[in-house]
């Protein structure tokens, strides 16, 4: 593109098309080791995230809780596919758009909703909020809201897994904005040098907040790994089978070789960056186009077309989830806020730490 000097350093006034999706896998679920019975739980997992967040947004708009609320809606194939592909004791870290991943990993919806409400029954006891869900029992390690700052943590966790030779793999998710951070580049270098069993995943949803990926990142994201000799690939993130296929393959390789991987998953978020985002940086047509690739509808169509379940079976799941989410809201509403004394808990492991006053 020829730029006039007055254009400044990044082209302005142009609305970029966010992303182009690679082709999804052609494999059927049976080719991926999935049984017919595995598909309804997969649908359950994805639809639960969707309804949880739609209701969470309503609660936010009603003023039930404050802070930021970043919705994952549109990206559920990534979380559900990852969890299906990994072992339950593999370690997952995410960034701040993280409700979906926690729910996919099996965190209790009531405790997740309670965390949004800042209640003591929340997954982080009301200390973390939307951006900081943690559920260590499920090997879900957050919930990290300084962009890219958790990437070295993932490598460190992988170092400990390798040191203990426990066979666990770490998988670390972040957005396309995080690819520009020094933390990613420093970590990639060491992860490759030290052969750490970790999978880095950029969920490239096209926008670093409101800045299109073309405007914030030079080159293709997955190719950053080439500079370090790290294995990498780019995949369609709107199709859950594609995610399962790739994460299975990559996790197997990481377990066998102890070498890291970098996956670029092309996906799309339907909602704004956060609740206050008018979304002027993209067109309505683009949003509609991607809604046409909806991962939940796609799985639903597959299930029906292949006669794995009937319409009414899926409807029954949707109704069940509706009730789960309503119960989660009730649980959150009825739970207590943390006791004032809890302000001085959880900062140090030392129970009698003499806090400065």
């Amino acid at each position, binding site marked *: 593109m020829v730029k006039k000097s007055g254009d400044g350093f990044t082209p302005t006034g142009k609305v970029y098309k966010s992303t182009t999706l690679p082709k999804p896998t052609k494999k059927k679920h049976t080719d991926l080791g999935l049984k017919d019975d595995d598909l309804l739980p997969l649908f359950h997992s994805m639809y639960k995230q969707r309804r949880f967040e739609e209701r969470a947004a309503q609660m936010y708009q009603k003023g039930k809780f404050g802070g930021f609320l970043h919705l994952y809606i549109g990206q559920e194939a990534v979380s559900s596919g990852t969890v299906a592909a990994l072992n339950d004791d593999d*370690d997952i870290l995410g960034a701040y758009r993280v409700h979906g991943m926690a729910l996919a990993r099996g965190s209790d919806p009531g405790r997740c909703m309670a965390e949004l409400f800042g209640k003591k029954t*929340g*997954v*982080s*006891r*009301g*200390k*973390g909020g939307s951006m*900081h869900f*943690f*559920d*260590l029992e499920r090997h879900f*390690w*957050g*919930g*990290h809201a*300084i962009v890219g*700052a*958790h*990437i*070295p*943590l*993932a*490598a*460190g*966790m*992988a*170092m*400990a*897994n390798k*040191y*203990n030779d426990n066979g666990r793999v770490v998988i670390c998710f972040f957005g396309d904005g995080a690819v520009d951070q*020094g*933390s990613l580049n*420093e*970590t990639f*270098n*060491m992860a490759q*040098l*030290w052969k750490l069993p970790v999978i880095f995943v950029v969920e490239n949803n096209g926008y670093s907040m409101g800045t299109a990926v073309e405007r914030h990142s030079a080159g293709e994201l997955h190719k950053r790994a080439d500079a370090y000799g790290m294995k990498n690939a780019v995949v369609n993130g709107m199709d859950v089978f594609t995610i399962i296929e790739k994460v299975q393959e990559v996790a197997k390789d990481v377990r066998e070789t102890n070498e890291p991987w970098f996956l670029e998953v092309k996906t799309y978020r339907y909602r704004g960056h956060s609740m206050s985002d008018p979304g002027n940086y993209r067109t309505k047509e683009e949003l509609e186009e991607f809604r046409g690739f909806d991962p939940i509808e796609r799985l639903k169509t597959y299930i029906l077309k292949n006669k794995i379940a009937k319409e009414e079976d899926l409807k029954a799941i949707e109704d069940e989830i509706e009730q789960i989410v309503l119960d989660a809201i009730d649980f959150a509403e009825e739970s207590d806020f943390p006791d004032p004394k809890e302000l001085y*808990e*959880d*900062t*140090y*492991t*030392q129970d009698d*730490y*003499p*806090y*400065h006053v």
Partner: protein
Amino acid sequence: MAVLQFREAIREALTEEMQRDEKIILMGEEVAEYDGAYKVTQGMYKEFGGKRIIDTPISELGFAGIGVGAAMNGLRPIIEFMTFNFAVVGIDQIINNAAKLRHMSGGQISIPIVFRGPNASGGQLAATHSVAYETIYAHIPGLKVMYPSEPGDAKGMLKTAIRDNDPVIFLESEQMYGMKGEVPDGENLIPFGKGKIKREGSDVTIVAHGKMYHVAKQAAEQLAKDGVEAEIIDPRTIKPLDIEMIVESVKKTNRCVVVDETHPFCGFSAEVGFLIQREAFDYLDAPVQRVTIPDVPAPFAKNLLELWLPSPKQVIEAVKTVTYRN
């Protein structure tokens, strides 16, 4: 009781702890094959091997964060910064991750990690290589901060830091690594938040930690010749602070000078001064005075650096002020 260099005392603490607990690893620039930039880790690579003594690239952000991640997941890393001036590159990992992850996860995560290395001025190294960071780290909840002044303290304090389950900032000094001192034989764990009266006196309390303890000591020796007996309190741990020991001393001497190598504004000396006025106001016979580096970066020129650094002469002047001998 052995007489050891400061660096040897630290090495003994590191080595003994690593022999005791195989979850401890040590990472940093030049710590392994080079045997340590300041020879603190000399011989340790040979003893423990490359799985536990790990050379890193010059990536302070990266290896600080990798250390935190390893600590979250069951290891007990010791991260050596070649100096704490370089730790600033990775300070997000210390301030946001090491210090806060336990809190944000509602107590699910513990981070047993020690960040250690030289702090403050190391001679004519100019502005970026001369900063004392204890005030900045002590400001952050979730961290504990130690800065020993003598080899015996260093060994006992570092062992405590390594065994603790919370992140600890352990500050050393390039200029003190060669300094010799008595180190007690056997296990001598020095707890957090316990200061030490390093010199008893009844006329004035001088609070001084780390390298500044030695400045205070020289001043006290000089003052004694003039008949002024200073009591020197070395808090040893900056956070949590043994304010009780300081207050008890001030109640006896009624006067206090704080010697501190951090900048004056919002510095360690400001906090100690505030605490003394709150806890011992009625005992004070003079306003608390302080000797700090000035509110400007470290200069290179030798004469300016001498002006910049706290000196025994300045401490003597401050003592004269609080004892009305000017």
